[in-house]
């Protein structure tokens, strides 16, 4: 394990404040230059969530530059190329936005985004993101624990799982016109995974609203699982008794399991998961770094899987 304590210094305390602030400004400027009119929310409203306090769950590793975070995305709703989402996601309309919360809850409801987000509860979480394709980033997200939201709607005793759905609207999401995956994109978590304090409902990154290509206006971030579990542009959250089936599972169950925990010992048929390329900082000639069990969050989450054969439940 890399970190001995489950809490590490927040980003703002690691870097001297002056450097930190000027870096922020630089990044905002870079964002504005990069985004221009293309990326709504970025660079326009500067640091909307700048006040969000740092979290004890944040890592102090160097951040992946904003330009990489916003230009290299797997978001097949806007095309299967890595640069497609940054180019195409401007067609997504994120206001107004409503999320339907139903299933095994005592108070099902459809709630507007403003009502869903309680600004006072937002915090900045700097997480590692490990993609199943063998690359990783370090991203300062802004969000709040999914558990806070689920508690508000009071899951019943029959709720065992949480199922999520992305918006389905081929007009706004042109990638959905092709049957690359069985739309809408579906994901799911076991209830205890969903209630875990690391599981973050995310509304921003780098102190600003989420750019569309990163899953605006509301996405999930589950840092100990492969990136595709962190579903984007959520419109539906259902608590269920039965385990939901996920989009990638439907596409290829042998390769994409329901759990999909980051695990260097369980290989994916396409990619060895033993190592990863940290994007943005490393030279091509540098060897890939070893991947950590549960993406380095084992101390916090390993107990969720005690007694489970992780080769079987991949």
């Amino acid at each position, binding site marked *: 394990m890399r970190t001995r304590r489950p809490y590490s210094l927040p980003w703002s305390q690691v870097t001297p404040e002056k450097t930190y602030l000027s870096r922020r400004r630089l990044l905002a400027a870079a964002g504005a230059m990069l985004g221009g009119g293309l990326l709504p929310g970025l660079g326009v409203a500067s640091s909307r969530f700048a006040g969000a306090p740092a979290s004890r769950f944040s890592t102090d590793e160097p951040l*992946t530059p904003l*330009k*990489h975070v916003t*230009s*290299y995305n797997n978001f*097949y709703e806007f095309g*299967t190329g*890595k*640069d497609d989402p940054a180019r195409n996601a401007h067609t997504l309309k994120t206001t107004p936005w409503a999320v339907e919360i139903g299933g095994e809850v005592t108070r099902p409801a459809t709630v507007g985004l403003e009502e869903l987000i309680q600004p006072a509860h937002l915090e900045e979480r700097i997480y590692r993101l490990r993609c199943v*394709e063998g*690359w990783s980033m370090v991203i300062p997200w802004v969000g709040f624990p999914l558990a806070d939201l689920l508690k508000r709607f009071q899951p019943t005793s029959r709720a065992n799982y949480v199922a999520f759905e992305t918006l389905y609207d081929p007009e706004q999401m042109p990638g959905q016109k*092709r049957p*690359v*995956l069985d739309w809408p994109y579906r994901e799911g978590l076991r209830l205890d995974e969903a209630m875990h304090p690391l599981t973050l409902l995310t509304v921003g990154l780098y102190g600003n609203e989420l750019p569309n290509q990163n899953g605006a206006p509301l996405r999930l971030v589950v840092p100990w699982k492969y990136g595709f579990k962190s579903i984007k542009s959520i419109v539906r959250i259902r608590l269920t008794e039965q385990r939901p089936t996920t989009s990638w599972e439907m*596409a*290829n169950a042998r390769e994409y399991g329901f759990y999909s925990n980051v695990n260097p010992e369980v*290989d994916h*048929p*396409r990619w*060895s998961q*033993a*190592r990863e*390329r940290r*994007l*943005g900082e490393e030279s*091509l*000639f540098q*060897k*890939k770094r070893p991947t950590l069990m549960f993406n380095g969050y084992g101390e916090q989450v390993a107990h969720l899987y005690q007694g489970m054969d992780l080769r079987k439940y991949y």
Partner: protein
Amino acid sequence: MASRLPISTRGWICASTTKVVGTGWRWDKPLLLMVALMPLGILIWSLFAGQLGANPLETLTHETGEWALRLLLATLAVTPLARLFLWTGLYRYRRMLGLLAFSYGVLHLLCYLWFDQGWLLVEIGRDLLKRPFILLGMSAFVLLLPLAATSTDRIRRWLGARRWRRLHRLIYPAALLAAVHFLLLVKADRFEPLIYLGILLLLLAARGLPTGCLSRRSSPRTS
């Protein structure tokens, strides 16, 4: 046709095999070479300018691999085009196209061995055994090796035309392996690799059509 010289149509048609023409300096091959190396030039320039995006490893690997496959298809297009349209001047470019395909293949393999695996032989071996698409890609490369090695006129003469031709039929399985390698490695969107595979199958099938059948001339005018 750029290569036509004021000798005779016959000389032009037979140029590649009989060497009737080709004494003077011709700019067509250098031009082809330059055009075919442009993608590589752009990649290298982008690499040093930091323009390869967030994941240079992935960009370099994908681009070199796709260009290898494209040039392999171009090589395989020479024979059917030349035969069906009686456009024999094309044969002149076949060797260069093949060698270019091989060169991009070398770069593609190097990207994998060096940047992706960091020369960790144990992991490369494990990859080969576990992942069919790696095995297929590597096999395609191994099949192309003897073709590149026997590409000079002197070796061709030494081998004898018949044996040389038989050996060079290895390009068919190599191209099939390369196309299936691409098909197997994509996650969900099989559109692009299927196009490559489709073109390859067309090019292979076209070899079964009678000579000159798409030409306006009824029969080859080589005699």
